[in-house]
Structures are given as structure tokens and as C-alpha cells.
């Protein structure tokens, strides 16, 4: 690491860590190999940390020890106590933590080495790291607060917001460029940091909770790139590799999520979706048919194939175990049960899969959209649990709908549909859903968890 000679031991541990990280991510290509992969990544992390503790630049260990202990306690508690339903908040929070660490390291580097001695490229990487780090920190904190319900999840907008944001963004980048060109102006650097923190708030505040899967992925990507930039500043390859892997993972997920909503990233970031769409798509008319618990239970019990379609409502009602109980009761009667998972169901990529896995649903029963859609015509009952937009036929049929073109789970092609819904109100995005008025659809009102438990009971009695 230093000019007088490379610390071979340190570099070796970093090389080992890089290899183990890559093998770890490779393991994630299948549920069977995933845990083993993660053990490898953990071993790599441990090697890199231990190697670093022998770094020649370290002269005092008191703050390091304190930090490691406090971090381990907080992290350990989070790992044990956070419920699966709170996974989106937890992940958003960890993006904030990662980005904050990157920003702080950048600021500290600037204090110690900043100014004229730093080459232009390093200055740029440092500025980039702090800018991205600060922006991601506050952005992720806002996202986490929205997901936790600390601030309201609907888009928070005001007139001229886009101009304010554009100005803010331009000033941040301006400060960044200025401090790269003129290293002797620490004030500008710190202004950039402050503006970065402010930008994070302003960028995420106008985005609605329903768009969180994209936002989470993007913040994931930024946090990773901030870490990679740290690697450039410190001339450290393992940081560049790990940060880039993280950054690209987030980037790929963002693209997948956007495809699943048929929207562009800029549309998500600047669209303020779900705020004022109440006029569009109001064409749905007719009557919603209510179904009684008993009738629903009978229909399910005598079906050959039932497909459950979960949405965010499943998470809010904590109904994953109730779904599983009902499925078990049905399976005992010989009914084939499958689960159709939309890529953006829930608040983060893969949210529904984790919840259902928690309730011991075998992952072989979880079907992606492309695989389950051809099965709906042969499905006797499709049960929609707390999902709305991802089953809205308007996305397919009505080109004027705000969600037109979004690929949906085509539950309306099933022989019958039971929608579990809290009340007659609109879904999260405020869109009217014609599915509810279709002749094949019956509505079962009430809390999803209670309804499902009662259904399971009824099915056993049929």
C-alpha cells in the first residue's frame, strides 16, 4: 500500500477476499448453494478485516475496537430481531449505513490529505464518493421512514419541485467540479457534502411507496458505487471489486423493476407516480360481487388448481402464515396450490418470496410471472391477497391507464377469482381496478389474515 514496499500479507488477504466474494455471489444463483456461498463471502470478509488490522498505518486500536464492538452488537441485534415483513426498511437502512460510512471515510480523507497534494483523479473519486455517499445516506433514510410509516408513503410534492431539485442538483455537481479543479477551497467541498445530504431528501420525498422497489434498487446501486469510489481513493482493489459488484447488482435490479412496471428510471424518479391520477382509468363500472366465507371455502375446497397472488397487503396484514395454512388445508384435499409472484409485488425485489419462504412455502411452488401466466386459464380459483396494480387488467386493455403496458398477472383469465380486500377503497396507487367488477371476480372483504385463517378452518370442515 505504501511507496516503500507493498504489504504482501495485506494484499494477499484482499485477493482472497475478492475471490471469496465472487464465489459467494455465484452461490446465489440457486437456493441450494446460496448459504454455502454466503459462508465463503463471510470468510472473505473476515480475512480482509483481520489483514487490515495489521495495516502499518494503524497506531491506535481503541476507537477501532469500540467501533467494531458497537457495530457488531447493533448488527447482531438487527440480524436476529428484524421481522421478515420489515425487510424493505431494514435494507433501506443498511444502504444508508453503507453510504454514510463511505461519505465519512471520504470526508476524513479530505481532512487528512485533501488539498493540493492530491492528484486530480483522486480528488474526483473522493468528491464522487462523498457526493454519492451523502445523497444515498439521506435518500435511504427517507425511503426507510416511508416504508416504516414514519412519514407518509404517498408522494410529497409541491409546485416547482422539479425546478428546485434541478437547481439543487446543478449546485451540487457545480461544487463537485469546482472542488476538483480548485483543491484549495475546502468550503466548497463541505458545501457539496451538505447539498448532497439535502439532495437525497429531495429526490426520494416525492416518490410514492409503490415505486419503492425501483428506488431501493437504485439506492443499492449508489451505495455500491460510493464504496467503489472509496476503492479508487485508497487505491484498494478489493473495495473497487466489492463496490462494483454491489453497484451493478443494484443497477440490474433497477432495470428489472422498471421493466416490470413498464416505466423508465427517470419516470420513477421524477414522475411522482400516484399523486393525481384519480381521473384516469375511472371507466370501470358495474357491481362488485361479494362472496361469503362459506361459499369461498367451498369453491376453494372443490377446485383442482388454486393460485395465490400475494401483494404488499400480505405483508401489512402479516398474513403469510395464514396463506400457508390455507394452502396446506387445500393440499390435504388434493388441490394443487401454486403462488404467482409479480416482480414488483411488495416493496423491494423478491419481497414476497422471502415472506412466503418464511411461512415454509417450498420455493418450488413460487412461480414467476412468465411461468404462472400461461397457467391461469386452467386455474379454478385465483386468490388475490392484498395485490392490486399487479393484477389490474387496465394495464393490458386500457392504453389511457397510467400503468398501461405494465406486465400483469392475468388472474382475470382464471375460471374464477377471489379478491381479499380490506374494504371497498382503492389500492395504494389510487387507481380503479376493473378486475373487481368482472363477472369472474368475487370480493371477500376483511382483514386478509383473519379471512385466510377462517377460510382454512372452513375448508377443513367442508
Amino acid at each position: 500500500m505504501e511507496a516503500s514496499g507493498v504489504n504482501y500479507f495485506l494484499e494477499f488477504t484482499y485477493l482472497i477476499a475478492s475471490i471469496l466474494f465472487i464465489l459467494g455471489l455465484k452461490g446465489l444463483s440457486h437456493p441450494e448453494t446460496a448459504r454455502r456461498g454466503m459462508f465463503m463471502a463471510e470468510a472473505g470478509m473476515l480475512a480482509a478485516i483481520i489483514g487490515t488490522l495489521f495495516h502499518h498505518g494503524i497506531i491506535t486500536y481503541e476507537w477501532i475496537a469500540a467501533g467494531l464492538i458497537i457495530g457488531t452488537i447493533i448488527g447482531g441485534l438487527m440480524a436476529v430481531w428484524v421481522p421478515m415483513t420489515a425487510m424493505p426498511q431494514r435494507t433501506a437502512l443498511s444502504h444508508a449505513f453503507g453510504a454514510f460510512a463511505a461519505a465519512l471515510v471520504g470526508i476524513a480523507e479530505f481532512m487528512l490529505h485533501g488539498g493540493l497534494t492530491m492528484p486530480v483523479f483522486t480528488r474526483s473519486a473522493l468528491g464522487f464518493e462523498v457526493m454519492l455517499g451523502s445523497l444515498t445516506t439521506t435518500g435511504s433514510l427517507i425511503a426507510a421512514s416511508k416504508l416504516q410509516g414514519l412519514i407518509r408513503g404517498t408522494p410529497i410534492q409541491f409546485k416547482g419541485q422539479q425546478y428546485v431539485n434541478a437547481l439543487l442538483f446543478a449546485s451540487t455537481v457545480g461544487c463537485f467540479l469546482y472542488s476538483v479543479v480548485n483543491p484549495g477551497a475546502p468550503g466548497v467541498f463541505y458545501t457539496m457534502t451538505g447539498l448532497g445530504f439535502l439532495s437525497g431528501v429531495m429526490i426520494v420525498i416525492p416518490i410514492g411507496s409503490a415505486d419503492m422497489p425501483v428506488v431501493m434498487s437504485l439506492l443499492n446501486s449508489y451505495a455500491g458505487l460510493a464504496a467503489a469510489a472509496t476503492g479508487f481513493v485508497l487505491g484498494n482493489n478489493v473495495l473497487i471489486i466489492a463496490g462494483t459488484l454491489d453497484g451493478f447488482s443494484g443497477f440490474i435490479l433497477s432495470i428489472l423493476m422498471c421493466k416490470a412496471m413498464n416505466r423508465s428510471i427517470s419516470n420513477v424518479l421524477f414522475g411522482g407516480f400516484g399523486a393525481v391520477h384519480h381521473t384516469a382509468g375511472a371507466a370501470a363500472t358495474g357491481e362488485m360481487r361479494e362472496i361469503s366465507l362459506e361459499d369461498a371455502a367451498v369453491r376453494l375446497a372443490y377446485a383442482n388448481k388454486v393460485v395465490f397472488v400475494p401483494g404488499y397487503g400480505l405483508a401489512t396484514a402479516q398474513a403469510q402464515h395464514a396463506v400457508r395454512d390455507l394452502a396446506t388445508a387445500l393440499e390435504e384435499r388434493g388441490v394443487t396450490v401454486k403462488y404467482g409472484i409479480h416482480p414488483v409485488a411488495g416493496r423491494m425485489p423478491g419481497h414476497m418470496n422471502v415472506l412466503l419462504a418464511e411461512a415454509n412455502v417450498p420455493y418450488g411452488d413460487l412461480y414467476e410471472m412468465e411461468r404462472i401466466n400461461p397457467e391461469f386459464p386452467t386455474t379454478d380459483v385465483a386468490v388475490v391477497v392484498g395485490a392490486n396494480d399487479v393484477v389490474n387488467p387496465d394495464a393490458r386493455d386500457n392504453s389511457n391507464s397510467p400503468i398501461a403496458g405494465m406486465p400483469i398477472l392475468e388472474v382475470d383469465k382464471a375460471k374464477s377469482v377471489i379478491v381479499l380486500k380490506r374494504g371497498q377503497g382503492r389500492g395504494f396507487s389510487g387507481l380503479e381496478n376493473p378486475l373487481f367488477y368482472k363477472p369472474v371476480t368475487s370480493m371477500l372483504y376483511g382483514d386478509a389474515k383473519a379471512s385466510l385463517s377462517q377460510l382454512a378452518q372452513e375448508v377443513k370442515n367442508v
Partner: protein
Amino acid sequence: MQAIQSINPAVLIASMYVFVLAAFLGYQLISRVPPLLHTPLMSATNAISGISLIGSLVIAGMNKVDFHALAGGGAAAKPSIATLLGFIAVVTATTNVVGGFGITDRMLKMFQQRKAAKGGKK
């Protein structure tokens, strides 16, 4: 870190190679992760990028905190402030590493295949 002053073009170019190759590798690796595991993926990559901890460790250990100088402010306080910033970074990065790997493993443990493969149930 001393490396900063002595960074030379060859190191920089090597870093760019590492970055670009890691990007390609990342694309290949991540594309193979099934949507089923996207939540664990996000939490795993998050834990892995907690490797920025190694940068924080060096910063937090490079200078002793001199509370006198800290109170005095000015340039003399900078090393102490840097150490404290490093300390906070160590806390948040460690939280990510421990929490991230812990929670990823907890999630992955839940993904089970149907137990008695062809027995009874279906």
C-alpha cells in the same frame, strides 16, 4: 493513507481495469440470480460492500484523538476529527457487515424445497 500522495498512472490504469472487469463479472453473476432470491441478493451485496469497513478501520486507527486539540479547533483538530469520523464509519460499516450477513443467512435458511419429494402432499 500514504498511498494517496504516491498514486501513479500505472496504479490508476490497473484500478480502471479492475473496475471494468468487475462490472462485467458483476453483470454475469447477478443476471444468474433468480428473482426468487432478489431480496437475499440485495442484502448480501450490501453486506459485501460493507468491505468499505477496511477503509474506515485505517482512518479510525491512524491518529489518536487529542481532546485538547479537538477543543482548540483549527487545523490541529483535524486528525482527531478524522479519527472520530472513522470511528462512526467503523460502527455503521460493521453494522452492515454483521447485520447484512446475519439476515441474509436467516433468509436463505427459510428457502426450503418440498421435503418428502413425492410423498403424500401433492
